[in-house]
């Protein structure tokens, strides 16, 4: 992890100086939005495949059952291997991944029995594994503090404060030993207290003690005046490392195996027949979902991480009918949700409206006593904003959106009305009863239409130049006749 952090820092330094980087990395807003965006990229990309495989809720199950993996790995680490308890050990990550796969395998086993459907199977497995984890935690792991708040919503707002420092220049660590010229040596009486005598007593025995010996980090060395130049440090938030790595792994996985994942998601049988191992890909995907669920746990909690897996892919699905575009849109929607979500938590809606102004207005108008300062959960606000974006997609989606569907329906209704009238003129024109059937004033009675609707249709047809009205009688123009014939060709004369 340390090496990876160094790499990230060096990459950053290609674009900016340490003086420019530190204020950015210690800005709560930037770090929270960046971390939210990284989770959104991982969740958004993996979620697309979950959604298309009809297993969106598996992310919910996995984000809880990884707890079992973490607990078991923790017990193995401290109990069996005798290692010190370390909550950032890679062993815990392995445990989490195994628990994620176990969730999916158990669900599939139960489902394959044919006695329980897929949704119920998931609902059986996930509380089971979670319950075992809770029992293990309460029975054996009483010294690890797990706080309900952080499980529910995470602490993305504090991510900026938990940093590792990386030294870039003047990185001289100093170790002072007693024989160093800089060592400050003092004499200390070793038997004064035991014998209850003063150091001046002749019986007193002395030893030399070094007051400033030990290891100094570069920053400590400079503060202690042991080095002349201040070290240049970059303070890197720890949580960005894990999510950064997971983002790289996720993107690498999807870019490298785009074709294989697409085929095995669309048609697993053909993928198997062609020799791509859809089962293996399936479990690799589940391992990644588990890792992202664990990686995002500190930041957004085990419940709201599900929002990052499900909402952006669902919105992207409405906006496109190409997998590649969906894989691009989904992380973008998630990241946008994270960005505006942070602002919402701090009281600003899309940067347009301030919640405090709204509350103040409410207080004035209704005489209520609402607290006007708006400060709420960041991860919950991010989830909320993603949902707002989903609703926007639902409304404006070009193919399935409410707006375009109702517009298309209205257009179809109009076209149909037009064709009905044109066809009526076509059939009766020139016939003996034409004067009666085609009189504009009474046309609506023949078709049993409301007069207003008929007037609108006639107005439209005249505007198109498809009919003419002479002496109160409607006639088809040559263009109108063409319209009728094209319609009959397309819809009536087909065999």
């Amino acid at each position, binding site marked *: 992890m340390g090496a990876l952090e160094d790499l990230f820092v060096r990459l950053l330094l290609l674009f900016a100086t340490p003086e420019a980087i530190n204020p950015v990395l210690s800005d709560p807003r930037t770090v929270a939005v960046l971390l939210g965006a990284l989770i959104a990229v991982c969740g958004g990309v993996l979620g697309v495949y979950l959604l298309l495989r009809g297993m969106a809720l598996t992310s919910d199950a996995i984000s809880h059952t990884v707890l079992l993996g973490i607990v078991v790995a923790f017990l193995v680490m401290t109990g069996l291997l005798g290692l010190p308890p370390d909550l950032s050990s890679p062993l815990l990550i392995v445990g989490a991944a195994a628990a994620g796969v176990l969730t999916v395998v158990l669900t599939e086993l139960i489902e394959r029995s044919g006695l329980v459907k897929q949704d119920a199977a998931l609902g059986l497995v996930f509380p089971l594994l979670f319950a075992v984890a809770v029992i293990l935690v309460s029975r054996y792991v009483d010294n690890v503090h797990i706080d309900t708040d952080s499980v529910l919503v995470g602490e993305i707002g504090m991510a900026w404060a938990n940093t590792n420092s990386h030294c870039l220049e003047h990185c001289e660590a100093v170790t002072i030993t007693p024989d160093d010229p800089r060592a400050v040596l003092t004499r200390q009486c070793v038997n004064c207290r035991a014998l209850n005598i003063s150091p001046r007593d002749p019986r007193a025995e002395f030893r030399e003690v070094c007051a400033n010996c030990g290891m100094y980090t570069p920053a400590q060395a400079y503060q202690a005046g042991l080095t002349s130049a201040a070290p240049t440090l970059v303070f890197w938030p720890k949580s960005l490392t894990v999510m950064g790595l997971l983002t790289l792994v996720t993107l690498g996985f999807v870019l490298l195996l785009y*074709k294989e994942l697409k085929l095995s998601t669309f048609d697993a049988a053909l993928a198997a027949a062609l020799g791509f191992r859809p089962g293996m890909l399936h479990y690799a995907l589940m391992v990644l979902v588990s890792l992202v669920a664990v990686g995002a746990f500190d930041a957004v909690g085990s419940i709201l991480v599900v929002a990052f897996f499900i909402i952006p892919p669902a919105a992207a699905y409405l906006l496109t009918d190409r997998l590649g575009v969906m894989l691009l849109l989904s992380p973008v929607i998630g990241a946008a949700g994270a960005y505006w979500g942070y602002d919402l938590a701090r009281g600003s809606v899309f940067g347009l409206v301030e919640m405090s102004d709204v509350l103040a207005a409410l207080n004035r108008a209704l005489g209520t006593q609402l607290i006007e300062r708006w400060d709420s959960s960041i991860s919950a606000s991010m989830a909320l904003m993603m949902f707002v974006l989903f609703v926007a997609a639902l409304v404006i989606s070009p193919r399935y959106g409410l707006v375009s569907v109702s517009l298309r329906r209205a257009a179809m209704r109009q076209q149909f009305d037009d064709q009905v009238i044109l066809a009526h003129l076509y059939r009766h024109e020139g016939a003996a009863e034409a004067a009666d059937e085609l009189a504009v004033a009474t046309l609506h009675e023949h078709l049993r239409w409301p007069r207003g609707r008929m007037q609108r249709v006639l107005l439209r047809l005249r505007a198109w130049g498809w009919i003419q009205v002479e002496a109160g009688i409607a006639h088809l123009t040559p263009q109108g006749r063409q319209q009728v014939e094209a319609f009959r060709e397309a819809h009536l004369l087909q065999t």
Partner: protein
Amino acid sequence: MPSQNGSSPTVALHVEDLTVAYQRKPVLWDVDLDVPAGVLMAVIGPNGAGKTTLIKAVLNLIPRAAGRALFFGQPYEQARSLVGYVPQRGSVDWDFPTSVLDVVMMGLYGRLGWFRRPGRREREAALHALEQVALADLAHRQISQLSGGQQQRVFLARALVQDAQIYFMDEPFAAVDAVTERAIVGILQALRAQGKTVIVVHHDLQTITDYFDWVTLLNVEVVASGPTAATFTPENLRRAYGGRVSFMEHGQAAIATGD
């Protein structure tokens, strides 16, 4: 209708002692089968006879309790490139966000192998296959906009680009209109004319003698297998379907309803 290489008895598919069971209920029981190269063969039998299972089991898509299958003398792992597979149309999600051309190109993924992406050559091959099934105009359509018959032809085109020697098709005629059915039959017969072997799970007993020159009657066990003229007999049909087949004139058969 004699097949082109009826005289040279190359065996395209050899199935030996194949048994498949779900839990302990046998679905296929000790199936032995030899299909000569260059025939257009129907697999028929009542519901639950194991027709789809037979295809999936020989293609290693489901575990076998016993037995083996050889394609031109080779096990499936070595014969992958010789085999084309058209699953049932309902086995995939047609709302999947992808285009017709993309689905057809999937047939070439096996030849590309891991990691390599399809390029211009693959696009052209896919377009050519779409022309053969008369769907070139719809290449860039989203697949959810296709009718049932068009979906079936897309699957067929996907198998055509594989340029396999032996094709397995699971109910390609299910719920397609008469025009599409004729088009599909035309393609199958063109494949046979090129010397390919085509094995089709089929339901409509009326059309067996018109479409197929080889037939296998299956009901968990193989009831009979051979040239249509000799095999598609009232006696064999009764053995495969039990008493549920009523016969009409000219030896044509239909499954009686009401079971």
